[in-house]
């Protein structure tokens, strides 16, 4: 990605930004987030199929913000995260430069948020293909099978909260799990407490999840917790015909309503 390196270098050299958030290759060959502040080090930036992490999570991180104005290598999920963060007032459009990356890995010219919005609107915003089949298959299970499946999966959870920490939308400085008056979520990592945590997390992301799948990827014990939020993303679209992260003005599905919202279960 020489074009990316050139652009990053340029931004740093002319002091448009103080840090470029991108990817570099770690010692084991894994792509990982990189924070380039020195134009000379822009060479280490990479972009290829290994670069999957949603970098938007760093846009709300204090120590990263302290460096100064940020440029960020942004695939579609990152761009949608940025839109969400702006709409939820965690980020100001003026404070970042978006180095957009197209689906086929090309550097996009994202001059401003309007352009980004245009790009997002043109894109397929439904859940990634690789998860769609999984969700369809899973939905075919009986309620009992589903219950058992999640019990088994969630018994593995160690409450390390990597799912939360990796999620760009989980930017709260105090999470509900940290509230103990009342103790909404049990502190211990037993199956029941884990289930309550994952329900809470999914509900808090209903209408806000931008389907990047980071939560599932980050989980060290391999719980497919992204299916929960992705299922709700499907349902948000199903009921309300919206996808999260399409404009900086959007407000989330659970904080708005239409008088004619349809449901079939309230008697």
């Amino acid at each position, binding site marked *: 990605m020489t074009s990316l390196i050139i652009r990053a270098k340029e931004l740093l050299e002319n002091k448009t930004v103080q840090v470029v958030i991108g990817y570099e290759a770690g010692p084991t060959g894994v792509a990982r987030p990189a924070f380039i502040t020195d134009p000379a080090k822009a060479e280490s930036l990479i972009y290829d199929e290994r670069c999957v992490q949603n970098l938007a999570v760093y846009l709300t991180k204090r120590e990263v913000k302290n460096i100064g104005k940020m440029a960020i290598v942004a695939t579609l999920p990152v761009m949608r995260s940025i839109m969400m963060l702006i709409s939820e007032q*965690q980020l100001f459009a003026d404070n970042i430069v978006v180095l957009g990356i197209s689906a086929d890995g090309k550097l996009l010219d994202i001059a401003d948020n309007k352009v980004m919005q245009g790009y997002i609107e043109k894109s397929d915003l439904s859940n990634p293909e690789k998860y769609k089949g999984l969700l369809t298959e899973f939905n075919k299970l009986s309620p009992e099978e589903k219950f058992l499946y999640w019990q088994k999966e969630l018994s593995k959870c160690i409450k390390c909260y990597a799912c939360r920490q990796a999620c760009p939308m989980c930017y709260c400085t*105090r999470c509900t799990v940290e*509230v103990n008056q*009342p103790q909404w979520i049990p502190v211990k990592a037993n199956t029941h407490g884990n289930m309550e945590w994952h329900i809470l997390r999914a509900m808090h992301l209903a209408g806000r999840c931008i389907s990047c799948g980071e939560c599932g990827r980050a989980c060290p014990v391999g719980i497919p917790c992204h299916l929960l939020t992705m299922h709700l993303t499907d349902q948000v679209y199903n009921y309300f015909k919206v996808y999260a992260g399409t404009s900086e003005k959007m407000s989330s599905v659970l904080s*708005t309503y239409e008088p004619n919202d349809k449901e079939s279960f309230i008697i």
Partner: protein
Amino acid sequence: MARIGVFICHCGENISATVDCGKVAETIGKLKHVAYSTEYKYMCSDPGQTLIKDAIKEHKLTGVVVSACSPRMHEPTFRKACAEAGLNPFLCEMANLREHCSWVHEKNELTTQKAIDIVRTQVEKVKLNSALQPIKVPVTKTAMVIGGGIAGIQAALDIANTGHKVVMIERSPSIGGHMSQLSETFPTLDCSQCILTPRMVEVAQHPNITLYTYAEVESVEGFIGNFKVKIRKKAKSLDEKICTGCGLCTTKCPQKKIPNEFEQGMGMRPAIYVPFPQAVPNRPVIDKEHCTYYIKGKCKICEVVCPTKAIRFDQPDEILDLEIGAIVVATGFDIKHADFFPEYGYGKYKDIIDGLQFERMASASGPTSGEIRRPSDGQVPKNIVFIACAGSRDPAKGIAYCSKICCMYTAKHAMLYKHKVHEGRAHVFYMDIRSGGKNYDEFVRRAIEEDHVNYIRGRVSTVFERDGKLIVKGVDTLLGAQPVEIVADMVVLATAGVANAGAEDLAQKLHVSYDQHKFFAEAHPKLKPVETNTAGIFLAGACQNPKDIPDAVSQASGSAVKVAALFSQDMLTREPLVAVVNRYAPPMYSTCVGCFLCQSVCPYQAIEREEFKNREGKVVKTVAKINEGLCQGCGTCVALCRSKSIDLLGYSNNQVHAEVMALLNEY
């Protein structure tokens, strides 16, 4: 350590017939922190209340649970009793043993057990209650009335007469509104101008009223008792203090072909004009859109002829900042222009006019000096058709609602026509006659019986011109649904009353809700018809829905009383059951992360932003803050808040959680 007192009421036998009150009192008495538990025949009686008060003192109770009827019935009674015994009233809760237990279940152990569960739940809740103090909000005792029609005038005068200051804002150059356009008024046929103009003058001269005409609301911030309003005084291009209102400029203005709004486009006016002779204030304004000087850069004839040199072409718009305690919205209505109904030919044929145009025509000061004449050729129409419900009560194509005033003014129009053109024939096509009101139906009967207006029950399908006549095709449903065709000289359409253009914009500025038709929404359709959902903002007149003059005036007086009641206190007292956003010491300030999604769930715009600055004055954190003057305590924001940074006093997270736990577990 909590010391809870529990008082089980028998309610005569209403509760004790099915619930074993003794067992309930005994079981509850064994709970942790329950210092006193007793039963009594009538807790709400004087001795019952005394029992509670004495127990509070004797047992040093820190909380009270009265287990009796529904809290919706007696919560105020028992809270007051607690307060009288020195216990904060918000430390008293009620357990509903009557409506929710004894009256709806059979006498058995399960029912008694349920009663125990209900009481225990309230015991656990009340332990977490906190002593709350009523909220006090200062009140700025100046009202603002938006709109200078009859409703606004009435509201302003009523408020001013209670001794409070009023600011009246009117968008057009004169107050008076639609009423000043009317010829005569139903059902008395007295002259509209004659009864209205004294009121207009009174407004202008009232020491408590400040009038701003040609002015609009720019923005409204703040809350009940404490609104901060910006208004834009549009430049009139003249110095009102110097102008004597002689009117010389208006006669000399070379631009004379501007459709006159006041005459509903049936007359012309110059670019510098006074809307109508009785205007208040009687000072001209320059219509910048049509003035030759503003368009072409030269003319200035008015400046030349003005004897007092009052013309100011370079006058800018002025922004005024006002501190307001209450707002009365009286922006009125408009009528639906009938050209959306092509089959009635409005706009296509000159001799088809709407009701307001007919008013002007019938008015002695109108474009025809009160004579009924066809706009096309000035002939007196011999045969005239009035079509009621032109576009109203028609969910398919027009407007679904009934505009309420059309039946009456159509009868009045027909009557006025007959009074002026004795030999003429007047026909009225109607769906139903809705003439509810004092002397209203008698008025309609008079039109039919004394003035021989031909009322035809049926709708008109189409109106078209043929050989200079208007062919009105309709149906008479009272004559076996026979098609009727009337060859008319003129047709008057009673079109629907609709919300004013700009109503939506104003509603958003005021943060009041509005309905699908853009009429402002009342807080409750029956019991709060004058209030809006935003505390401190009231409605008067047809901006809420189409109204006739008496209704508009009554509502205006109603809203004036609401304002006066509000202004009768120096401080506003409110129940403290409101939401709060938590606060901590720096550097945390609050656990609120400032996503402000709560703002969009709040129906009352009660959620504001609070910025915390460091010593250098730099904003380090922005968090939500509940305006307790506006919050009504619904708690929707509380359930939405992801970081649980908002809580609702009286129904706190801790309390409701404790209730769930207590309801389902043994203690």
